[in-house]
């Protein structure tokens, strides 16, 4: 619980270096060890390449989807970490993008971070988001004969509730 007290200096620096190249990147929150930025779906691939090559974030920790049904939007959050860059092992960068709920489609980052493969497959089936460039759309965790709307959408009501 000690990390909230300190001034998030590193996070501010990282955000400044991203914003210097991509002015449309917005700051969501900056903490001592966490930084979340939001970018547009059209620029997320460039931002990711920049973050991987210039800032050294080398692998994906997880990909999370959020259904903001009141705003009619889906949010995709990529949590990226670094194993090889010294001094930043404790830092997690979250890159988020928002896409319209009616036409959920976003570029895949599988060629930038190959570890995104299964995470994107899971997000695809749980939210019905189409990842352009991902090689497969097969069901992964859900049964093969799933014929309902994707379960983690907010308008899916669990049976028994």
């Amino acid at each position, binding site marked *: *619980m000690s990390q909230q007290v300190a001034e998030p200096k590193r996070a501010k620096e990282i955000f400044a270096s991203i914003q210097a190249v991509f002015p449309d990147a917005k700051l969501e929150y900056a903490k001592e060890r966490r930084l979340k930025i939001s970018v547009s779906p059209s620029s997320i691939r460039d931002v990711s390449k920049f973050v991987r090559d210039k800032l050294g974030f080398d692998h994906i920790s997880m990909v999370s989807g959020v259904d903001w049904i009141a705003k009619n939007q889906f949010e995709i959050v990529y949590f990226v970490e670094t194993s090889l860059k010294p001094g930043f*092992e404790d830092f997690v960068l979250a890159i988020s993008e928002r896409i319209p709920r009616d036409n959920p489609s976003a570029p895949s980052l599988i060629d930038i971070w190959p570890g995104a493969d299964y995470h994107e497959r899971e997000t695809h089936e749980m939210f019905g988001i189409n990842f352009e460039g991902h090689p497969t759309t097969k069901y992964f965790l859900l049964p093969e004969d799933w014929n309902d709307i994707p379960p983690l959408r907010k308008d899916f009501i*669990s049976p028994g509730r």
Partner: protein
Amino acid sequence: MTTEVTYEPEADRIMNVALGPQHPGAGHFRIQLWLDGDYVVKAEPDPGYVHRGEEKMCEYRNYIQNVPHLERPVILDSSNILFPYALAVDELMGNKVPPRGQYLRVIMSEINRIISHMYFLGIMGMFVGHTTMTTWGMGDRDFWIDIAERIGGARVTFAYIIPGGVRNDMPEGLKERALKTCDWFEKRMDEYEKIFFKNPLYLERTENVGVLTAEDAVKYGATGTVLRASGVRKDVRKDEPYSAYEDFDFDIPVLNSGDSWARSYIALLEMRESVKIIRQAFKNMPQGQVRLKLGPQPRVPPGEVFARTEAARGEMSYHLISDGSPRPYRVKIGTPSFKNMRVLPHLLKGVHVADIPAIYWSLNYWPVEADR
């Protein structure tokens, strides 16, 4: 002339085989294999046989009701999957967990790490045909379960680490017994090393089998024992010391060979460090409260948090969003098994069929945890 006998054309030499879900080498998990004779051309994991929709269930329950079902995905490591959840809720609410509660969290987490690694080594012995390690692993695990049972009250599902601290204090007289178990277990681990890890048969079956280089491990996002066995020093306990981990003196074992043997041997090295931590924690245990009073339905202010800890298998992370209502808006669980699963098809490419069990189980893959 017509005949009922037909021959397959020569080109069809690639055979598609499903390994599991009912198979001694792949319980509740399936690997789809493409074989050319004895060699694996391509492998594709097919999880989801234990997908129970934990993340959807979280949205129907409040923050305390979520505790019992969140520990079920990885029942042999049940405190470690609750740990980041408790950290996330604490961070959102601004809870200051009392020092004794933090120490008890560390003790329970490390005991669970030993329980989980012992199960891993026991099944590893079963997979490579070393029955002694199977019976030792399953039997010795129970001594640690006994200690955890006296703290948490159940054999495997403790629901012990909760938001605001731990559920209850440890009983009287546990310290002596736990320290005695530590002494005994350290001697016991020397025997594992002699009988199992330095056994020529075991070395023959696992050395240089399924070698994962450090670059590939990082590229595919491997974590935990798999990553450290490939020579990357990364452990959340050291990198961002949560709870009271900065108070303890311990090492992060790293091996460089990246084969199945290293991935199993690192579990033994980690258990040695865990015993060290448990001993220090019992000796330096502070006095006082073990938890904050939160009430049955705590109010969590709106916000978003990403919390992670080092579970037995690797980095366990939670993405938690609260909108101010009694129930979480979104809970995403990032489990180490799911992160390590991407390594499996990479490692299985080109190996013999007989090496599949040694590679598969050396990843310490627990299907229930991956499927959630």
